[in-house]
């Protein structure tokens, strides 16, 4: 129970803050436009600045989550490496389900229950994305720089342990994210993998989502 609280309490606070900020901040209606026109003046430089700043925030999330729940992150990372296709399929279906469920919940907004349901769905989606992407960082780091033998592991001073693998994965994926056009697509793909691995392992706890019905 303490492990669950240690993992979910900070994540829920962060996700709830993000969703609250999204709802509370003034927005330009239903128009799909950015708050400041990145496309216009020196857009390339601005985009890079925003991306690098966001990668720095992701570093904070990766370090914090790996320190708090290293075992869970490792478990999701292993699942991602062992069943990549399953995680990707699950991630795609889950993201589609989030969107369709949000549309259904938005129908319920006039009946009061819609707003809390939408809020909870958004918080759950943000938690899943943050946790899942950190698992992807770990998996990528383990694929690229993970030790294969004990001798190799013993000879390393820095590049060993969950924290180093997560940071390495973040650096690699962050560097890919900086590539124009392709970078955001790679990042979005990684997010889908992450959502899939988070849900496939129930946030690294490897417990079933549903109770099995046993007939007598």
């Amino acid at each position, binding site marked *: 129970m303490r492990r669950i609280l240690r993992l979910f309490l900070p994540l829920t606070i962060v996700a709830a803050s993000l969703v609250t900020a999204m709802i509370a901040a003034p*927005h330009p209606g*239903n128009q*799909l436009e950015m708050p400041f026109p990145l496309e216009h003046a020196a857009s390339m430089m601005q985009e890079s*600045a925003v991306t690098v700043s966001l990668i720095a925030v992701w570093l904070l999330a990766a370090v914090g989550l790996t320190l708090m729940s290293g075992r869970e992150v490792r478990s999701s990372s292993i699942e991602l490496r062992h069943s990549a296709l399953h995680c990707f399929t699950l991630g795609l279906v889950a993201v589609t*389900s989030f969107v369709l469920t949000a549309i259904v919940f*938005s129908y319920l907004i006039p009946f009061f229950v819609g707003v809390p349901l939408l809020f909870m769905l958004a918080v759950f989606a943000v938690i899943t994305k943050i946790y899942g992407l950190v698992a992807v960082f770990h998996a990528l780091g383990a694929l690229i720089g993970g030790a294969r033998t004990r001798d190799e592991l013993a000879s390393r001073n820095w590049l060993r342990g969950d924290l180093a693998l997560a*940071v390495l994965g973040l650096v690699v994926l962050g560097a890919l994210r900086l590539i124009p056009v392709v970078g955001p697509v790679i990042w979005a793909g990684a997010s889908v993998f992450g959502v899939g691995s988070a849900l*496939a392992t129930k946030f690294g706890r490897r417990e079933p989502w549903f109770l099995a019905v046993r007939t007598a």
Partner: protein
Amino acid sequence: MKTQSCERYLEDPEANAGHLAECEECRALFGETAVATKPLHIEALPLAPWEGAKHRPWPLVALVAFVLLAASVVLCRMAGVSAAEIADHVIGSMQARRAAVLGWADSLREASRAAQIGFVAAFVIVNAVLIALLRRAPRGIDA
């Protein structure tokens, strides 16, 4: 009856293998077991994922954090973007997604009956597939 020789054998069966020939009691217990045992070489086993996992290389983390922060500050200065604008950008992109979902919901309300039935069918099918996929047990092994 347990003797010192028996204890030595229990501590290191391979080094004291000759003890079995001397002690009938130990021979009965360990001499010819139904399960064939082989000496276990830990070094020959594949590296487990948890080995060395707790190691925390703080210099690496500090170095990466410093480089990222420095790059962020330099790029923000060059581009003339403040931290508040970046936060605005993040919140704005999330709001854009929210607006898109609400827009789709609005357009679905005004859509034909067939489109609405199609949406309900898609909702049921996608969630049924999601539940089916969630029922599969994880495969990766973490000892």
